[in-house]
């Protein structure tokens, strides 16, 4: 057999940053990963674990038990001050001031033209202090965005180099984490955050994630990261064993859950309405915000293109960048035109994979408005073939809530 395509592993993960050989940033857990046979790959300037053994096994572990992810590449920005709420209301599209202390919100940062600069989670850790978790690829973009005070009484600090972020995701995550905290873990709602010690180590624990499963994200200092990881990780063999999972499993998990990835579903090329995230934009909040006028003009009209889910009939994966075609058949005998010459082009795949949970080829794509309704047939161009597919509702997977 001959290998004829090696797909760019980073593309499916939404990253396009090239780094020189010795120019990577290193996770505080790098030696932990290497000791556990991780396949390390460059990701947004970092060297991070793609997988340890089998991506499929790691994925399944999150759906059925629990797995640990190193998210130390993600950026952390702390915004503090008397006017922190107003300042964030100016920069972000949601009503940040309405978040209760100890709660979190998924939101967007837009440009004046309404395009999406970043998606992020904002945690209100004190009345006048917020923790922002941003994408690794956008940490500098967001640090730059928050570098000016714009007249607000506020201080924003990029603390990404000081903190590690470790996720424990899966139905057993609560039980496992509960055995490790110094005090009993309070009854935490989804999207809440507490400060609590794990075996004497100060941590923030948030009930958030990017897998569609119950789980937690644990923020600790880089110095304590390895101790925390070792405590959470237990090798196979008992019912509560935790697996290690890499970026590949994280990508397939979030895809099943219909969650957007910056660089794939979100970019400067799209606005929140096209991305299906219009509900995050709070036009009614008292402060004006960056992008408000542009977004207001868009809010009542049907977007020209929309992010939708699809399933490929044959089960063949349809990957990032593949072209979506209308269901029109070609005149008999015609060969399939090249990507940029096919007049049937109506969209492009943003993410796609064979779902380890559903055993189907699933994906998300931006498609022109006339071809977005559920059940609509489309073709997806996969190399020299066109694969039949249909539009389906997002998300592909929803966990059973107990």
């Amino acid at each position, binding site marked *: *057999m*001959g*290998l*004829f*395509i*090696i*797909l760019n*592993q980073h593309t499916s993960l939404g990253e396009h940053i090239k780094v020189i050989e010795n120019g990577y940033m290193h996770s505080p857990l790098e030696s932990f990963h290497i000791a556990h046979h991780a396949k390390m790959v460059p990701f947004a300037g970092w060297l991070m674990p793609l*997988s340890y053994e*089998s*991506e*499929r096994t790691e994925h399944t572990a999150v759906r059925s038990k629990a797995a640990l992810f190193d998210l130390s590449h993600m950026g952390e920005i702390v915004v503090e001050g008397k006017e922190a709420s107003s300042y964030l209301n100016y920069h972000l599209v949601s009503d940040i001031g309405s978040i209760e202390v100890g709660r979190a919100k998924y939101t967007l940062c837009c440009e004046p033209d309404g395009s999406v600069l970043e998606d992020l989670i904002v945690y209100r850790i004190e009345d006048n202090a917020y923790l922002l978790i941003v994408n690794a690829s956008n940490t500098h973009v967001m640090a730059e965005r928050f570098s000016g005070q714009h007249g607000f009484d506020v201080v924003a600090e990029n603390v990404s180099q000081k903190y590690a972020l470790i996720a424990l995701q899966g139905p057993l995550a609560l039980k496992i984490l509960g055995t490790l905290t110094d005090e009993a873990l309070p009854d935490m709602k989804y999207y809440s955050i507490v400060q609590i010690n794990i075996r004497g180590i100060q941590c923030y624990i948030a009930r958030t994630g990017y897998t569609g499963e119950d789980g937690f994200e644990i923020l600790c200092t880089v110095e304590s990261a390895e101790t925390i990881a070792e405590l959470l990780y237990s090798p196979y063999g008992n019912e509560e064993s935790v697996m290690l999972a890499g970026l*590949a499993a994280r990508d*397939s998990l979030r895809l099943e859950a219909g969650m957007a990835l910056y660089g794939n579903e979100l970019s400067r090329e799209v606005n929140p309405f096209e991305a299906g995230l219009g509900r995050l934009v709070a036009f009614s909040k008292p402060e004006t915000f960056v992008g408000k006028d542009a977004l207001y003009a868009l809010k009542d009209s049907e977007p020209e293109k929309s992010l939708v889910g699809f399933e490929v009939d*044959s*089960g*063949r*994966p349809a990957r990032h960048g593949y072209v979506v075609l209308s269901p029109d058949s070609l005149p008999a005998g015609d060969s399939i035109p090249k990507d940029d010459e096919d007049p049937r082009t109506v969209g492009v795949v943003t993410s796609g*994979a*064979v779902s380890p949970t559903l*055993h189907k*080829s699933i994906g998300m794509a931006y498609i022109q408005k006339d071809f977005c309704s559920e059940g609509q047939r489309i073709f997806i161009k996969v*190399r020299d073939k066109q694969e039949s597919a249909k539009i389906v509702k997002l998300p592909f997977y929803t966990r059973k809530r107990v």
Partner: protein
Amino acid sequence: MSVPSNLHYTKDHEWLLPEDANRTRVGITDFAQKALGDIVFVELPAVGSDVAAGDVIAEVESTKSVSEVYSPVSGKVVEVNEGLTAAPESINTDPYDKGWICVIESDAAIDPAEFLSPTDYSSITQN
């Protein structure tokens, strides 16, 4: 890495199992499946199609790559492993048994001298 002693091999990491009546069962090796990683899709040849040695008979997609499988012999495809449609991961878990790809019927029995022995195949995978 497993290299069963009853099979013949190609340098392109296919295995062959001669069966009765000039039939040859074909698959990819343990070494190949490990290199590819988690296999998520297999395109099988049509039963009844004529193939020449070296023709592409299948496409194997993993989470990160797409590979062609070449026919090691000339003949007619008489059976394909339909089980791979629902469970392509059989190639990962059981490359020499449940993960077989197809059976090709030729005019004559294969000549083992045209293929790599288990020992020779093992040595090329170690380089």
